């Protein structure tokens, strides 16, 4: 099954009430399939074909505020167009679920995969996960609804999947049946909603005396949502046999250099690790599945013992200290005694493949830089220096 179709099948099985979305490559197949299942009567939901992503997210706010289970999906420029509305959903505690098929931002115009779209949305206070294969996409979408609607959370969730390299790939994916999904995902019971019989006002002005407190409240609930994120993964594993962690480790025992990745390149990275381990190189891989709230304790545990980290970023933070993932990691490790050296490599921008050979190059540079510090804080892999 195509991974995009698996994502929309998960949304169908979650029995959503409202889908408001605007098609954009490479997310198109997700909303296309959902509009079909609604039109064919397979899913009893309102499909709102809005005129822009700005309207899509605005519509999602309204439907979620009315108590409807709400889904949307977007990518790149579409996500950027949603930008100003994205912050409002967590502030209003609306459990919207969104799939982002990650794609580069213009310019130059690019429809291909990297993480620059989502990394431009770091501070929106949504829970964010990254999938690395088709099965994870299906599972994480169901997990997203379960976490978002938990009465202790009530925050929106983004499931990130790599555009094309995941969205358009055909893989064997186990689809759960409706009865199984119903066991995992109870109907959404909003704590407060727009209801003419019991009127409330939502989305009001926060005067200077209250804005700070409102922001603090959202930040606290986002930080504390990790407990529910983990609980929902544990319950998913107990029911369906697939267990997930916020940070995953691969062959990190005795590793001197640990590669850090997110998303679908992690599978290529594992192949590269296998190859390098066969040659006797002490290397391992740590990859993030949960990006926000940033799982700092789990990450520190996963990299314990490594002298060097080679962090692969799939987005550039121009004029900054390093890529966004490396920045988060460096900040998390700064206060740690005996912290590892962190080197940052920008790779796979705008759809360029990140190959096994690229990972070998990154690891060999990390070993070299550990002995002799490089002049620059980050470097772009595969860039033609002519």
């Amino acid at each position, binding site marked *: 099954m195509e991974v995009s179709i698996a994502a929309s099948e998960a949304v169908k099985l979650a029995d959503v009430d409202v889908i408001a979305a605007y098609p954009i490559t490479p997310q198109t197949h997700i909303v296309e399939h959902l509009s079909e299942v609604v039109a064919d009567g397979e899913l009893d939901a309102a499909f709102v074909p809005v005129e822009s992503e700005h309207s899509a997210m605005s519509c999602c706010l309204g439907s979620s505020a009315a108590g409807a289970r709400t889904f949307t999906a977007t990518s790149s420029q579409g996500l950027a167009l949603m930008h100003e509305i994205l912050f409002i959903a967590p*502030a*209003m*505690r*609306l459990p919207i679920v969104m799939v982002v098929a990650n794609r580069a931002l213009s310019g130059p115009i690019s429809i291909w995969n990297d993480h620059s779209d989502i990394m431009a949305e770091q501070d929106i206070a949504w829970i964010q996960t990254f999938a690395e294969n088709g099965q994870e996409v299906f599972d994480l979408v169901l997990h997203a609804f379960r976490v978002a609607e938990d009465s202790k959370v*009530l925050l929106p969730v983004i499931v990130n999947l790599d555009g094309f390299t995941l969205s358009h790939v055909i893989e064997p994916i186990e689809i759960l049946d409706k009865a199984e999904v119903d066991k995992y995902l109870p109907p959404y019971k909003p*704590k*407060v909603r727009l209801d003419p019989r019991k*009127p*409330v*006002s*939502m989305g*009001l002005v*926060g*005067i*200077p*005396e*209250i804005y*700070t*407190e*409102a922001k*603090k*409240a959202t930040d*606290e609930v986002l930080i504390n949502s990790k407990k529910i994120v983990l609980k929902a993964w544990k319950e998913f594993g107990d029911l369906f046999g697939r267990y997930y962690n916020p940070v995953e480790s691969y062959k990190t025992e005795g590793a001197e250099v640990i590669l850090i990745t997110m998303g679908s390149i992690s599978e290529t990275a594992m192949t590269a690790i296998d190859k390098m381990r066969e040659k006797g190189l002490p290397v391992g891989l740590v990859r993030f599945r949960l990006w926000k709230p940033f799982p700092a304790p789990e990450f520190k545990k996963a990299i314990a013992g490594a002298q060097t980290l080679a962090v692969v970023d799939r987005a550039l933070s121009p004029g900054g200290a390093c890529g966004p993932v490396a920045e988060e990691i460096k900040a998390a490790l700064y206060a740690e005694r005996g912290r590892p050296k962190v080197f940052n490599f920008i790779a796979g921008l705008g759809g360029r493949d990140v190959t096994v050979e690229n990972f070998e190059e990154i690891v060999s540079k990390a070993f070299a830089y550990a002995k002799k510090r490089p002049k620059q804080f980050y470097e772009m892999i595969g860039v033609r220096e002519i």
Partner: protein
Amino acid sequence: MAKIDAVMGWKELDLGCVIRQPGSSRAFKTGDWRSQRPVVDRDKCIKCGLCWVYCPDLAMVPAEDGYYAVSLDYCKGCGICAKECPKDAITMVLEED
């Protein structure tokens, strides 16, 4: 800067800052950043009510005797009432402090 009666802590805020009691904006006095205030000359006033109609903040309050009083809790000093008054019965004067 405006003051609110109860200064709430972040733990006390309702879910997503919803307001369950309608009409709460009445309790929020918004008139204290005014730099000018309208003064009505009752000798010129013909009780036409145009100031009441034009005031964007319902700060012109009809009195029992047919005249209009200014609610300084909400008046922001925009001067629309003075501009619209057909008898020039309203003058904007500078707030002293």
